[in-house]
Structures are given as structure tokens and as C-alpha cells.
């Protein structure tokens, strides 16, 4: 799981940490029950405040991607693996759009229309 934080970015650090974990969930194919590094460890390694990581983990919990259990830390949920499958479908969509030379804004409007 690779997490990159950019201190010069306008995005808050907790959102960047959450985004890093979110990306890792689909990219690394983490299975339900996988334990994420403890908030304390992650904070120390990234050199950010413990509360920044805790806030990121709480955000991911609210999204249903992880569970926070006392004594077990942050654990990947089954919901996260569903999203990994969805992400694979998005990759297919992008590949198909590139093959057909359809530009990004058209693809986005198609997706918005389908979601509506």
C-alpha cells in the first residue's frame, strides 16, 4: 500500500491519506479482513499528526470501506472489494473509450447520463 502526501497541495492531508488508502484498496486487491497499518505507525512514517490519520480512517469507515475495531485497528470490509470490482469496470470503460478515440469529457457526460 503506497500512500503519497503532498504538503503543498490545497487538499487537506487527511483527505490525501484517505485517497491513498482508497486507491490502495482497489490497486493492491486487499481482501476483506486485511488489517491496515495502525494509525500511530502510519502517522509516524508519514510524519503527520495522529489525528490526521484517524480522521482519514474515520472518513473511510463512513464510506463503508473499512471497519474500525477496538484492538484490531482498521480492517478492510467486503464493500471495499466490491469497489475494486467496480474500478476494474471503469478501467475497461476507459480502455474502450481510448480504442474508439472518444474524449474524456464525452465519456464523463455519458457516465453522468447513465447515473441520472
Amino acid at each position, binding site marked *: *500500500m*503506497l*500512500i*503519497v*502526501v*503532498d*504538503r*503543498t497541495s490545497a487538499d487537506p492531508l487527511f483527505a490525501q491519506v484517505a485517497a491513498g488508502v482508497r486507491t490502495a484498496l482497489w490497486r493492491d486487491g486487499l481482501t476483506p479482513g*486485511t*488489517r*491496515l*497499518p495502525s494509525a500511530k*505507525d*502510519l502517522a509516524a*512514517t*508519514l*510524519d503527520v499528526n495522529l489525528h490526521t490519520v484517524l480522521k482519514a480512517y474515520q472518513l473511510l469507515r463512513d464510506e463503508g470501506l473499512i471497519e474500525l475495531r477496538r484492538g484490531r485497528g482498521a480492517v478492510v470490509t467486503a464493500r471495499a472489494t466490491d469497489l475494486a470490482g467496480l474500478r476494474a469496470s471503469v478501467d475497461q470503460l476507459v480502455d474502450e473509450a481510448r480504442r474508439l478515440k472518444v474524449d474524456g469529457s464525452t465519456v464523463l457526460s455519458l457516465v453522468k447520463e447513465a447515473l441520472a
Partner: protein
Amino acid sequence: MTRHRSTLPLALGVPLAVIVATVLLVRSWHGDLPDPVATHWGASGRADGFTSLGMLTLLMTGVVLVLTLVLVAAFTYQRVPARVMTGMTGGLAAFCATLFVTSLLAQRGATDAATVRFDPTWIGIALVAGLLVAGAVAVLTRPDIDAGSTPNEPSPALTLADGSDAVWVGRVTNRVQLAGAALLAVVGLVLLVLPVWPIGLAVLGISALLGLFASWTVTAGDHGLRAHAVPAVVRLGVPVDEITGAEVVQVAPIGDFGDFGGWGVRSGRLASALWSSARARRCWCTAVTSGPSS
């Protein structure tokens, strides 16, 4: 590394040839042997187990065949060097067959197998025969072919913008070790209720140690490389200023035992950190090389 095509025929063929030769030899003694023959001797050296010659032959054949198949399967899976595999299967078959032959040889001419006493030299002869056959087969085995492994692709370096920090966190679990710990825990709990409870306590202790050190969390960041087990007090690592390079290498944990010494985390001056997945019979590891610490 790939096996030479003669490896499997040797690993299976030598035990098979030993079985056939043994069965033919013992069959030729059929008229001279008591019925039933002795198969087991007590601590005093007196025979206390008897069966027919046919059943004993079947048992010996079955044991050698099953052992051979299990060894070949396990050694193939673990990428154990060809010479070790053929030597072990041939040697083990020779040991079992010689023990079978020597114990029957002592019973030749006896009318009652119960009068034949156990002689420890049978085991000695069987051991020597096993070692001789193992050595001979190992020498005859063509070594594995080194397929001229492709040079390791350098992993793309992560480019970080100014003001950015990155951390990589991964966890590796040796499931075999974890299963072993669980098994030992059950054995330890059973022993606790028996009169040998101190042994049970010791077994439970070993099980706890195996379990606690089965899983490692590895962190790579601007501090360097760190690995810690479940008891976070045990930490290994390489400080960033000592790291001179990093590459992904492929190792066979048992096959390259001399270099890597099985599965686990390695920490030393030359190959400063290395971790591997126990699931793979031949696994990718990340080796971080470091210079001499100043």
C-alpha cells in the same frame, strides 16, 4: 531453474527398482521363512508382532511408495534441488528395504519367528545402505538447469514532487507457520491435562512464539526500511542513509537455502532486508542492499 528431464524418472524409478528387487529376493526365500514372520520387536529384543509374509511385503511396498510420492510432491513444490530429491527418495527406499530384508534374513531357517531376537545391527546396515544409495543416486542425478534467469528489471523509481512524502506499507504472513502454531497450540492444550503438563506448557510457549512472529509489517519511507512483527518491540530495519540499492529478486526459500536459509525476514550487513511470502514455492523478494555501516 528447471529440472533436467531425467530427474523425475530417477526420483520415482530408484525406489520402484528397490521395491521390485526386494520383493523378488524375499519371494525366493519363501520356503525358508516361518509363517507368520516377526514384524515388531519389543524393548527386550523379543518379537511381539507377527504377520504373514505377503502382508508384510505389501506394507513395506505401500510405505515406500507413499513416502516416495509425498517426498517427490513436496520437493517439487518447494523447488528443492534435484540431487536432494532423488537422493532422499532413493536413500529412504533403500533404508526401508534393507531393514525389511535384514529382519527377514535373520528369520531364515527358523521354524518359529518368536525365537528370533532383534539385532540393532539391522538398523546400522540399513542406515549404511540408505546413505550409500542416496549418495550414489545424488551423484548420478543431473543438476537442475539454470535457465539463465533474466536480469532483474529495475523497479521504476517513484518521483515525488517537492513537499511530498511517500510511505509504502505491506504485511506478509507465513501461513504455514501460523498453521503450525495452531497445531502446536492444540497439542499443548491436550498435554496440559495429562501428567506431562510441563511439556504442554513448553509446547504452548513455542506455539505462541511461532504465532507472534508469523506476520510482519514492512514499512518503506524516508526513514528507510522497517519491519516489525506482531510484538512491535521486535523491529528490524535499514536506515535510509545505509541503503545503496533495492531490487526485486526471485529466490527458492529451500532451494537456495545456502543464500537465504528458508522463509522469513533477513537482516544482515550484505542483504540487509529481505522478506518473502511463504505461499509461493518460489517467491519474489525485495532485497535492500546496504553499505557497511559507518
